[in-house]
């Protein structure tokens, strides 16, 4: 009986005490209220509230304050908020904004899955690409490809990235909010941002000479220049032994280049993503 009473009193007094403190705080917050800046509050309202830090501030609040104070002129820094946030910011600050820019999404420019890209040794360690690169820049012969250990996965705030099970990772463009964190953390630079409505991608990142690329990976870009030479209008450009696809002017021949590419590293964007993502389960 004694124990039950003790518990009862303990419970009661704690509840009372907590209630009292809460009440005190409520009163205090009334009394000590400070007027908040209205612009900041409004801006905070239109920003997505993800606090991802893509804008370069600690969180959405910091960006809102900088914008309101005129300390930051660049209204487009909130990539995750996209067109909606941009329109909102423009309206509040009374500035014309262009909301038609296409959303960028991350893409892993690599097809070197298990059995396609050769390995120089067997990495058995921390499941982390950055840890793996400490050992001879990773276990792939190709130093530019996806290591498939998923450092990017761990930093992605929206879980847009998945492992495929055969040594690669894929980004789901519908979930990607273009914060760019994965691009920053990836040690090989194989992730780059492409427009969401991309038609084709050159799915390789190898800057090695053609011959070396070929010995390292069955689907690496060997910089044969066929895409660039045969379809000068199509937007393929060889830089550093790698074909880079431009997305601004999509001239004729983009699709034909897919057929002509001897390495088969040019692929249609969305179709491949769906097929690969489903194998990821």
């Amino acid at each position: 009986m004694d124990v039950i009473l003790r518990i009862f009193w303990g419970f009661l007094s704690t509840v009372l005490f907590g209630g009292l403190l809460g009440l005190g705080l409520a009163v205090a917050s009334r009394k000590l209220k400070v007027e908040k800046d209205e612009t900041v509050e409004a801006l905070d309202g239109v920003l997505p509230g993800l606090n991802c830090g893509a804008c370069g501030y600690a969180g959405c609040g910091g960006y809102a304050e900088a914008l309101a104070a005129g300390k930051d002129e660049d209204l487009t820094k909130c990539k995750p908020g996209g067109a909606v946030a941009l329109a909102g910011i423009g309206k509040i600050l009374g500035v014309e904004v262009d909301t038609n820019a296409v959303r960028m999404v991350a893409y892993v420019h690599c097809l070197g899955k298990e059995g396609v890209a050769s390995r120089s040794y067997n990495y058995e360690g921390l499941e982390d690409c950055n840890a793996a690169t400490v050992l001879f820049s990773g276990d792939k012969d190709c130093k530019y490809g996806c290591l498939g250990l998923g450092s990017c996965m761990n930093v992605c705030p929206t879980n847009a990235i998945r492992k495929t099970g055969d040594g690669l990772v894929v980004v789901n463009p519908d979930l990607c909010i273009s914060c760019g964190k994965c691009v920053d953390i990836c040690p090989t630079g194989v992730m780059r941002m492409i427009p969401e409505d991309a038609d084709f991608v050159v799915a390789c990142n190898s800057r090695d000479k053609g011959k070396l690329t070929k010995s390292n990976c069955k689907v690496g870009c060997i910089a044969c220049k066929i895409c660039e030479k045969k379809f000068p209008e199509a937007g393929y450009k060889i830089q550093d032994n790698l074909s880079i696809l431009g997305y601004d002017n999509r001239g004729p021949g983009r699709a034909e280049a897919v057929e002509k590419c001897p390495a088969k590293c040019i692929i249609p964007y969305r179709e491949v993503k769906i097929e690969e993502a489903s194998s990821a389960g």
Partner: protein
Amino acid sequence: MSYFAIVITYIFISNLILAQFLGLCPFIGVSKNVESAVGMGFAVTFVMSIASLVTWALYHLILMPLGLAYLQTIVFILTIASLVQLVEMVVQKYSPVLYKALGIYLPLITTNCAVMGIALINIKSGYNVLESFTAGIAAGMGFLLAILLMSAIRVQMETERVPRFLKGAPIAFISGGLMAMAFMAFDNSLLNNLVG
């Protein structure tokens, strides 16, 4: 224990961070640059000294007489959290400049186990009011010392070539551990030498 001994004890010998491993989240989280580390250090010192006073009074004037001493942990949690909230409001109202400087750190202290730690240690050691207060300040200064040293190390580390997977928090924890080992040199013999 003399006041001097208390001060030496909580700054060097049982430094809350380096000897008792309390309050590690602000220790790692806010030590990226010296300026914010100092801000955090003083904010913690301030809160710790007030919390020591309040919790002492609460325990000895209310909980003990009513025979509710077993409630100390939960009551202290409530008290410290509300106290920090209140301090935050007061500072925001009366000193916006100080609020700007401390603003982000104050909420962090609400749930800082080091504050809770010193409150409980005070009770356990049977200090009187003034001794508790002194212990609070000293523990805060110990925190300040540790976080200041840490921030200095981390600023240096920015320019070093740290392997990428150790960058940031991991290497900070490793250096923190090494620092804790160094602080093991301060033990009770230091006190005996000083106060005899």
